[in-house]
């Protein structure tokens, strides 16, 4: 076994996801304790920019730049990553708990017959290199600290915004190009297209700030004021199960047990009553603001700051006030 910590540097259309930088920053911290080498593993096609963005964050980068890897499929990634992992035997392999991470890692862990902790909200390491992965269970009603038995690598996917990006690592990675071992056309599955969601906003799981409205918004067209608030903060707009079930918003924006768990730095909920389904999805947000007309709304029990008030009055005023505050910066 080598003493390497690997981070899956997930990229989409040549841009490395922020969560990969968060994990490389965490790995750099771990390596101080364990003396490990931090390596990124980057797969895709046309990766010059992606590679450039990564070199100061890792000691090594395993690079698989191949036209056959232009789009992610678990088949193609697994066939490329598994032999590399078997050859180099890293002690740890981390990835973001993204739609791709959660698609690839369980299959890869099964293939490698090793331990995998999904959707973690914390990681710590002991001097002997043993990883402790903290993850929510039952939608966040309890948490578990997981430890790995003998098999390596110790694998985990980690939620966005769990670690901070350290821009001052100042590493200069050694790049190790790997040639593709297979003909990608032999694969059973292929990507034929990507339908991009309207607007340029980040997914609610990736955004540092999320603003959401629930049934209190009264009509789908009223989400316009939420979009305007979000634009000022460079935030994304989330929602509750109720509005999705009404058909007002897409399920991709639903926060909560049957939707997504978010770990935003700031989460602001307007006209959200705070049903347990919803609360479970915001458990790991750092600061929570709630605005609702009902002073007894459950959401206030889970918020850091609360205002009893009408969202139709508060949201536009807040947008204006934030515009001023942001201009002062």
């Amino acid at each position: 076994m080598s003493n390497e910590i690997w981070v899956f540097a997930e990229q989409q259309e040549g841009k490395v996801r922020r969560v990969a930088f968060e994990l490389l920053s965490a790995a750099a911290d771990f390596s101080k304790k364990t003396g490990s080498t931090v390596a990124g593993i980057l797969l895709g096609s046309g990766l010059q920019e992606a590679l450039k963005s990564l070199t100061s964050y890792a000691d090594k980068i395993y690079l698989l730049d191949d036209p056959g890897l232009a789009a992610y499929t678990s088949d193609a990634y697994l066939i490329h990553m598994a032999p590399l992992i078997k050859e180099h035997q890293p002690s740890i392999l981390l990835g973001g708990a993204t739609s791709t991470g959660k698609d690839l890692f369980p299959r890869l862990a099964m293939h490698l017959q090793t331990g995998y902790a999904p959707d973690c909200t914390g990681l710590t390491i002991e001097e002997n290199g043993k990883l402790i992965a903290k993850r929510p269970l039952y939608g966040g009603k309890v948490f578990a600290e997981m430890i790995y038995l003998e098999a390596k690598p110790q694998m985990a996917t980690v939620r966005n915004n769990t670690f901070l990006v350290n821009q001052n690592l100042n590493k200069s990675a050694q790049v190790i190009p790997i040639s593709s071992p297979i003909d990608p056309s032999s694969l059973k599955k292929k990507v034929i297209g990507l339908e991009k969601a309207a607007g340029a906003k980040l997914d609610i799981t990736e955004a540092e700030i999320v603003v959401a409205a629930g049934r209190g918004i009264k009509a789908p067209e009223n989400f316009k004021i939420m979009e305007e608030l979000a634009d000022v903060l460079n935030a994304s707009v989330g929602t509750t199960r109720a509005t999705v079930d009404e058909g007002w918003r897409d399920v991709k924006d639903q926060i909560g047990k049957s939707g997504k768990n978010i770990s935003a730095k700031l989460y602001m909920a307007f006209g959200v009553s705070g049903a347990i389904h919803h609360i479970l999805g915001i458990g790991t947000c750092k600061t929570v603001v709630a605005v609702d007309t009902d002073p007894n709304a459950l959401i206030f029990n889970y918020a850091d700051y609360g205002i009893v008030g009408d969202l139709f009055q508060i949201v536009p005023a807040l947008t204006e006030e934030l515009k001023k505050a942001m201009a002062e910066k």
Partner: protein
Amino acid sequence: MDIYVLVKQVPDPEANVKVKSDVELEIENKYFTNFFDEIAIEAGLKLREKFGGKVTVLTVDNKKVDALRRGIAMGADDAIQITDPALEGSDPFAIAKTLAAYLKDKPFDLILAGRQAMDDDAGIVGPGVAELLGIPHVNMIVGLEIDDPKKELKVVREVEGGKEILSCFLPALFTCQKGLNNPRIPQVMNVMKAMKAQMKKVDLAALGLSAVDVGGQAVKIKVQKYLPPPKRPPVKMIKEDFPENVKQLVKLLKEEAKVI
């Protein structure tokens, strides 16, 4: 089409779950069929309506079979319970191994599962089964178009910032996400019928597995300690009248929470 749906009975989202000791949880006795599994059952039933064939619901559980009953009530043809004392303490990889051992010599066209079970929220079993069976899988599908089960089909999965459209051939395994369909509510008559239905029971020996393959002996990762969720400090209510309350909030976010 021969379709298998992997299902699980899990604690209801309203059920209390608390830490009893470092290694034990206290779970309120309030269970329901995993929400995403119902979407998978519905998807299976829709395909049977279009192409004919059979939908079989399959669970690995020594006690709870209500997810199978739900499947039958919704319209599944057959229900299989894999049960064995040696399965106690199994992790998702062992469950996947057990399911794959059952499925490997069955003439399946398609295996469906929920995106994750709402208990350990792991999402390992679906992709794990696909890996062991050597078939492609796609996670979190929100669209599925099959014109002819023998030909290439289209499947849509949710990704950050959009939807990805993939093509693949059957046999395959898909895990289902909210948005794929709206699961039917079973009719009372069918619920009654499901209450009386006999589940076929299968044990590990019948699958060629033994106690060392599953259960506590096979785990690769384990819980060291359960913890309660982190507590938030009590809420600070901003009591000023409008618009002063808005100004105060912005000030707090900037100066106290330092998040903007």
